[in-house]
């Protein structure tokens, strides 16, 4: 599996981070302050999650005045909508299973 996919996976594996990303995707840009008010997570935690999303390049931050405005980079999900890549991995793993089934059929 490509590294870019793993990074995006890890970032979105956490439900809180996924929630933040979904919110930015759905409602457009937000400040940390606005995101904190909207959820039940403390501001330091929201900042931490945003930093992780930024490392995965799922979110970009734009500083205006005192606050940073965060928005989703939906193009970062591109590795995940790579059907060819997905099914390549899928069928390799299924073929391994098929081999196991063929072995068991002898018994």
């Amino acid at each position: 599996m490509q590294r870019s996919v793993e990074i995006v996976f890890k970032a979105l594996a956490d439900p809180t981070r996924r929630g933040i990303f979904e919110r930015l995707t759905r409602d457009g840009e937000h400040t940390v302050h606005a995101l904190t008010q909207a959820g039940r997570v403390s501001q330091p935690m929201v900042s931490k999650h945003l930093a992780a999303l930024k490392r995965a390049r799922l979110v970009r931050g734009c500083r205006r005045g005192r606050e940073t405005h965060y928005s989703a980079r939906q193009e970062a999900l591109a590795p995940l909508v790579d059907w060819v890549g997905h099914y390549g991995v899928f069928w390799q793993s299924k073929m391994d299973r098929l081999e196991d089934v063929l072995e068991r059929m002898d018994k």
Partner: protein
Amino acid sequence: MTTSDASTRSVIVEREFAHPPEKVWRALTESSLIEQWLMKNDFQPVTGHSFQLRMEPVPNWNGVVDCRVLDVEPRKTLSYTWGTLGLESVVTFTLTPTAAGTHVRMEQSGFRPDQEAAYKGATYGWRGFIDGLERVVAELK
């Protein structure tokens, strides 16, 4: 492993099994055996038969792949449509006897560039896909 032409792309996985074609054919076409390596199903090796492959549902995806049998040539070729999450593709297994057993070529064809973008739509959401991928990745370990 992948090929490309102007309009569609394919996934091709080839494997040689140390088992005769008759046996591999059974694993590809008997419902109870298919379930053991692929998914739960109501497959029948009859051209034109519509069936479903079912995984455990995940958020935003019911886990269902809609299929229809296109071609059945015992011990040689099995082909069916594979439709899920806006993806319309065709899966074809081709069996070739070898000295050691059977060579199996699986080709899933018909990935169009616009189908790759299907997931970006809100209809299915991307979470179901991610969960599906996570499961595949987990199986690799």
